[in-house]
């Protein structure tokens, strides 16, 4: 009956604007169960409809209000999805850009190395990547009669042919 009284107050209060009434009904319907759902008896349903303000007659007010509210909330959700989509796009394009920059820098580095090799402006140290030549790690203990170690200390300037 509390809800019915609320509706009654709303209907008889002519000083309230339509928007104020909508606000009040919205609050009531959004956070509390509408009276006709709580009380399934027909008199309650009739009473609820009979108490509607005159200006709203002929419209299913609750449906209109709930539709407006649903649209508003739907808009919120859509807007949120739009923001998420935008962020995801930014994130992925940032990643692509980073990868692109990395490729450019790598290409520059390779180009410098290849140019230097082509010009012959480099020194060559053979036998390093071959781990059997572990004596390279112990420079001070190199046997000077060893051919590889001799090469190591006097790197030959050669041009590589691919």
């Amino acid at each position: 009956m509390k809800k019915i009284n609320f509706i009654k107050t709303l209907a008889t209060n002519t000083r309230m604007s339509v928007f104020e009434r909508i606000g009040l009904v919205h609050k009531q319907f959004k956070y509390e169960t509408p009276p006709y759902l709580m009380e399934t008896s027909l008199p309650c349903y009739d009473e609820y409809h009979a108490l509607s303000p005159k200006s709203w007659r002929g419209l299913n007010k609750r449906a209109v209000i709930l539709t407006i509210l649903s649209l508003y909330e739907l808009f919120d959700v859509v807007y949120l999805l739009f923001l998420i989509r935008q962020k995801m796009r930014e994130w992925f394009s940032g990643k692509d850009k980073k990868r692109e920059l990395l490729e450019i820098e790598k290409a520059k580095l390779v180009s410098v190395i290849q140019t230097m090799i082509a010009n012959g402006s480099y020194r060559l140290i053979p036998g390093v990547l071959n781990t059997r030549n572990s004596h390279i790690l112990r420079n001070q203990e190199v046997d000077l009669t060893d051919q590889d170690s001799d090469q190591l200390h006097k790197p030959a300037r050669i041009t590589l042919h691919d």
Partner: protein
Amino acid sequence: MNPSLPSLLASIIVPLEQHNVLEITYTDVIEYFVLSRPPLSSVAKGALLRKNRFKGVCITQVFLDEGNHLICKPNGVPYGRQILAKKIDRELLDAFSSTDLIIVL
């Protein structure tokens, strides 16, 4: 050396792992090539690149294949490292001589 190469070299920013040391030695760089060699059969050479900086030197170590292309990790970043050092030891200076690139085989 091509006069445009030093400026190009200085502008390269490859995201390799960075190390800051006081002195870089010949043993350090060779040790890295031996111990940190990528476990890939395509590795044919190692390249040691010297870039002079305002205070010190930047040494870039990368691995190359037969075609002198960088050996990269699955994420596209090359295997290698960059060392910012204040000094280079005598032995490494001698190894570079007047050039800025050492190729190790």
